[in-house]
């Protein structure tokens, strides 16, 4: 019923899955910056090859990756069309009234398309191979330096962990409530917009009630186990770099250098 694969962990055994989440997060971050800096075709070619290799190594089925990207597909198409028609340029290939397609526009559109696709691939690759808990651990690690300027790194990470942890629970709950109301003859699929919106009350009210009940229970459970934030807290699983992580880091550095080298071409 709910196909939200972006931000969804796909549990299989692969090298990419086993890498240190801190490394994966910072790599994805470097990659984002790099993608915006790439000035020419060769840079994109290297980046695309690298991501393809990642996707293959992660052993997540292609169909699963693309299913998650379906939602963003419309935005992609819109952006590309917009760019093609509204980029000012000299070399007009086709013109009819105010509509003008230029070589510059086509070039720009191709560039944006490649860049966005690669961006989406790399971010879903990150979330598909890293469990939410690992991801927040990594975020907490990289936010730590900001504690000096009073950014509550631990609390932010804890909030994210909890939010992420409860997404599937709430989805499951929603599905259950929908089923229960359907069993009472609720018709959620037909009718106009207003009727559909009204039809949501029997779903949303129980959902909120249960969300608050869960929040209450969780707060109580945490408090009764003496949770009081970051102070004096140690970890059950400490993240540690393994040999594979060092090799991966080296490969990544190599890739960055290679891409940077293409800038000069």
């Amino acid at each position, binding site marked *: 019923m709910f196909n939200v694969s972006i931000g969804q962990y796909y549990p299989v055994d692969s090298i990419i899955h086993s890498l240190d989440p801190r490394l994966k997060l910072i790599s994805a971050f470097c990659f984002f910056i790099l993608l915006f800096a790439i000035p020419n075709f060769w840079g994109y070619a290297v980046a695309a090859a690298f991501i393809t290799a990642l996707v293959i190594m992660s052993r997540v089925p292609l169909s699963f990756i693309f299913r998650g990207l379906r939602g963003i597909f419309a935005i992609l198409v819109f952006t590309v069309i917009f760019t093609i028609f509204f980029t000012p340029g000299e070399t007009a290939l086709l013109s009819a009234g105010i509509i003008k397609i230029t070589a510059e526009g086509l070039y720009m559109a191709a560039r944006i398309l490649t860049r966005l696709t690669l961006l989406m691939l790399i971010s879903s690759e990150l979330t598909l191979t890293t469990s939410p808990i690992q991801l927040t651990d990594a975020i907490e690690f990289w936010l730590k330096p900001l504690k000096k300027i009073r950014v509550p790194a631990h609390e932010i990470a804890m909030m994210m962990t909890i939010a992420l942890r409860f997404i599937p629970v709430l989805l499951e709950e929603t599905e259950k409530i929908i089923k229960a109301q359907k069993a*009472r*003859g609720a018709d959620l699929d037909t009718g106009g917009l207003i009727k559909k919106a009204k039809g949501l009350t029997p779903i949303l009210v129980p959902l909120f009630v249960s969300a608050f009940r869960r929040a209450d229970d969780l707060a109580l459970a945490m408090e009764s186990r003496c949770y009081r934030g970051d102070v004096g807290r140690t970890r059950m699983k400490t993240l540690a770099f393994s040999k594979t992580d060092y090799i991966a880091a080296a490969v990544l550095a190599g890739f960055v250098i290679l891409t940077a080298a293409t800038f000069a071409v």
Partner: protein
Amino acid sequence: MAVAKIELRNVTYLYNPGTAFEKRALDDVSLKIESGEFIGVMGRTGSGKSTLIQHFNALLKPTSGMVLIDGEDVNADKKRLKRARQKVGLVFQYPEHQLFEATTLKDVAFGPMNMGLSVAEANERAERALEMTGVEAKYYEKSPFELSGGQKRRVAIAGVLAMTPSALVLDEPTAGLDPRGRDSILENICRMHREMNITIVFVSHSMNEIARLCQRVVVMDGGRELFLGNTREAFAKSEILERAGLSAPQMSQVMRKLKEKGMDAPIDALTSEESALALAPMLKKR
């Protein structure tokens, strides 16, 4: 009132087919539930009981196989599906979590209203259902959220009953209730079965409840139907219970122990009354 026969033919159900999360929750299940019977469904956690009963009113569509209500394929078209939902009332586990209206009466009237009845008719049905489940009239205009756990559960059951189904399927209706609340809900269910002459499908983890109430049982194990038949027979066959990971009801256990000690105890007795009647003459003879 119309009768409802529920029939499953080779039903297999997969959750999330074609992904890493694929799970075969039902595996080639065929069964027939006669109209007017009181049938139990048991099996260990995750054996597919809830998945099974969601097929009875077309909330889940079988991956392969067929579900027939009174001989009609429920998934054939929208009209039949709607009719199946009305004919077979499904009360989920912890149904009180689905209450949403401002007053108890309105919440119970939600189902009848969806059937297209007028407000007056819907309220009348709601009142009858609330009366049947033992909710007192003073609560009708109260918010359902202010009621106690047991009362909420009754209101939720009434919400399904108000649609005047000819079969009522209950998924662990007594889970999480205190003994008194449990007994009185069970009593109400028996009353519905008796007075309204409806089919009852009763999912429970309590062997004692099943032994006391159900004429027949379905025993589920790993998505497969391990046994379908007489309750007495099911509890007398210890190998079935063992394979399904269940324990016999207290009474059967006591009788079996007595038999081991050399007494001619009735090991297929299901209730304390039954075994008392059988044992009394033997004790008198001594």
